[in-house]
């Protein structure tokens, strides 16, 4: 039990506000009349729609299938009729609309047939495909399709499986309640994960501000194969890289994945969802969501995916007077919700209703005084003040050189900044600008390659054409050649015949100077003699 723990650089100790929502048991929600299910609930390609307006669906029926590799399925949260497939508000920092399936509940909540998976016997890749079709994605907030992470790879170099129950973000308690109430189910999910990954050791890291969750999991562990570790409470101790370092002392090299250092990290909520998918055969239809802050009855709810935020806040007794908006996620990394009709998705772990007392307006920023407080607080050991200068000046190359992409956007720097500079906002801006540039670059490279290929193709076609033409001419000549010979032979025969005919004609042609009487011959001879004489005198 006395595992050596490592402590990462910096971190902060914001006020937890955990007991606002952690003292009551997970509540279920009444069945709603309408659910709005977005097709983009995970990282990667949005799911491909399978239903049309007018279709009837059952609870757990797939309404969209995984499209491509980094993708996962989406299911109907209840039975009813699809009334629309259209763009609706979604929980996203942009406040933009995205494609959603709107399902009108029929009130029966009829389930499709759920087939449990024989995970010990099933072929690993078949099992992973079943999990993809069950819509499993990481419920810690990154919503990366779980089936990909459950692939140990050819090298099987994975030795440590870490379950993240740290829940370091203030106000949020959904993992805490889940661990307290469903420790056994989480451990069954962990057993499946361990089987799939072949991990040598399994660690569950929980911050020591959750003694009940620690006790519940420790009580539920039967075989001692899983180690429950209490980690110190420091934000962001629950970030994947930081928790890995705390538990194992291993650090992710820049740009590397955790699997490169033999570690895979899952959220405890994902383990629970995996238990449901594998043992019960039920796809990912709901998740635990914390509703806290300025509401009448804060707490945790088992929420069907697609439940509008408005209905969830109503289930928590509604927002109190003086509420000043909602945050999706926690106060450190969450974002403001634009529209309360946006639904709960796989990524949403908390709806925090703000009030002025707890969330005062951020004071105007003062110039950076280079005090270095942000660098001391940075858990990724970056120099946020430098990154801030470069991002602000849009000098993105320099920002990248200072490892902007190792920033986990935890918000520690903004939290400690005595000048109240919104550092993380600048880093997010710089990151998305760089991503766009890279996209443009790869688009331009593709366009260049395609253009060059087109030119090459045109040139090739031209050459092929001329070659064909030349070949045809040569072929014709070859065909003509024997005919020529024949003609020559014919010509020769003709010539010979003509010559022969000429000769015979010469032979038979009578001459009017032959067979003449001697008198006439004499006369001719006299005339000739006279002519010769005349010619002679002429000369």
């Amino acid at each position, binding site marked *: 039990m006395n595992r050596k723990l490592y402590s990462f650089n910096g971190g902060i100790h914001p006020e937890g506000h955990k007991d606002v929502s952690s003292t009551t048991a997970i509540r279920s929600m009444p069945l709603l009349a309408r659910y709005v299910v977005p097709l*983009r609930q995970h990282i990667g390609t*949005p799911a491909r729609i399978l239903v049309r307006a007018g279709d009837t669906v059952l609870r757990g029926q797939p309404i969209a299938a995984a499209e491509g590799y980094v993708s996962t399925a989406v299911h109907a949260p209840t039975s009813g009729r699809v009334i629309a497939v259209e763009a609706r508000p979604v929980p996203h920092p942009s406040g933009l609309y995205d494609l959603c399936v709107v399902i009108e509940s029929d009130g029966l909540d009829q389930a499709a047939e759920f087939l449990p998976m024989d995970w010990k016997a099933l072929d690993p890749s078949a099992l992973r495909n079943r999990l993809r079709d069950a819509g499993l994605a990481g419920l810690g907030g990154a919503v990366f399709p779980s089936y990909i992470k459950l692939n140990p790879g050819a090298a099987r170099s994975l030795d440590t499986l870490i379950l993240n129950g740290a829940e370091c973000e203030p106000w949020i308690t959904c993992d805490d309640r889940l661990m307290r109430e469903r420790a056994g189910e989480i451990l069954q999910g962990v057993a499946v994960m361990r089987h799939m990954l072949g991990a040598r050791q399994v660690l569950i890291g929980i911050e020591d501000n959750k003694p009940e969750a620690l006790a519940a999991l420790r009580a539920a562990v039967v075989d001692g194969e899983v180690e429950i570790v209490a980690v110190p409470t420091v934000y962001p101790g629950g970030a994947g890289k930081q928790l890995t370092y705390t538990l194992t002392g291993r650090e992710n090299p820049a740009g590397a994945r955790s699997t490169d250092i033999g570690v895979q990290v899952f959220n405890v909520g994902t383990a629970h969802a995996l238990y449901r998918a594998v043992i019960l055969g039920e796809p990912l239809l709901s998740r635990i969501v914390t509703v806290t802050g300025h509401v009448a009855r804060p707490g945790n709810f088992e929420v069907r995916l697609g439940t509008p935020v408005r209905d969830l806040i109503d289930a928590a007794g509604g927002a109190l007077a003086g509420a000043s908006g909602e945050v999706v996620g926690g106060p450190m990394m969450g974002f403001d919700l634009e529209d309360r009709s946006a639904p709960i998705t796989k990524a949403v772990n908390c709806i925090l209703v703000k009030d002025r007392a707890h969330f005062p307006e951020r004071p*105007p920023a003062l110039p950076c005084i280079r005090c270095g407080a942000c660098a001391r607080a940075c858990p990724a050991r970056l120099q946020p003040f430098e990154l801030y200068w470069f991002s602000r000046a849009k000098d993105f190359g320099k920002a990248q050189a200072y490892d902007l992409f190792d920033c986990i956007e935890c918000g520690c720097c903004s939290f400690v900044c005595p000048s109240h*500079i919104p550092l993380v906002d600048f880093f997010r801006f710089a990151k998305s600008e760089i991503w766009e540039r890279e996209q443009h670059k790869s*688009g*331009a490279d593709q*366009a260049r390659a395609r253009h060059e*290929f*087109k030119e090459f193709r045109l040139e090739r076609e031209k050459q092929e054409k001329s070659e064909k033409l030349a070949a045809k001419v040569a072929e014709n000549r070859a065909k003509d050649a024997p005919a020529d010979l024949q003609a020559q032979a014919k010509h020769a025969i003709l010539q010979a015949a003509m010559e022969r005919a000429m000769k015979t004609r010469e032979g038979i042609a009578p001459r009017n100077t032959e067979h003449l009487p001697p008198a006439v011959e004499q006369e001719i001879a006299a005339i000739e003699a006279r002519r010769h004489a005349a010619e002679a005198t002429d000369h």
Partner: protein
Amino acid sequence: MFSAILVMAGIGLVLGGVLGWASIKYRVADDPLVEKIDAILPQTQCGQCGFPGCKPYAEAIAKGDADINLCPPGGEEGTKRLAELLGVEAKPLGGGLEPKPKSVAVIDDHTCIGCTLCIQACPVDAIVGAAKQLHVIVASQCTGCELCLPPCPVDCIHMEVVKEDVANWKWRYPIHTMRRVA
């Protein structure tokens, strides 16, 4: 005196030989500047600069025959980067050219007669189709060059501006209220 001249001439010959050998051995086949300029250009292949494609424009810039501010798809950003590369002053787009928002061409499938003229015009082979068959533009490969618009005999191609959605949305430059320090 004589030996000194001999030594100097010898050194000269040896060094000259080395230089001559190096210039053949390490010859740079292509003008690397053209490649560098071409890498900055957006590869729209639209010809708005007056050259038949991005590479010819890059060659013209490298030779000094063309100005750096003739590429509307590259925009101000592109001009800036070219200026940086070439060590000249950046300037606004010239020649009455205006940057346009990124768009893709779309074929109206009710009007298309399948004449293949647009397919021949497309510089990046982003149009799929055959004679007397409906043509379709592969949006992800379309550079928005508009070269397919003029050859279409039935005017069935139009440009659509790429809308912002959840996938291509970017974080904005933070509105950064600074307090005045007196």
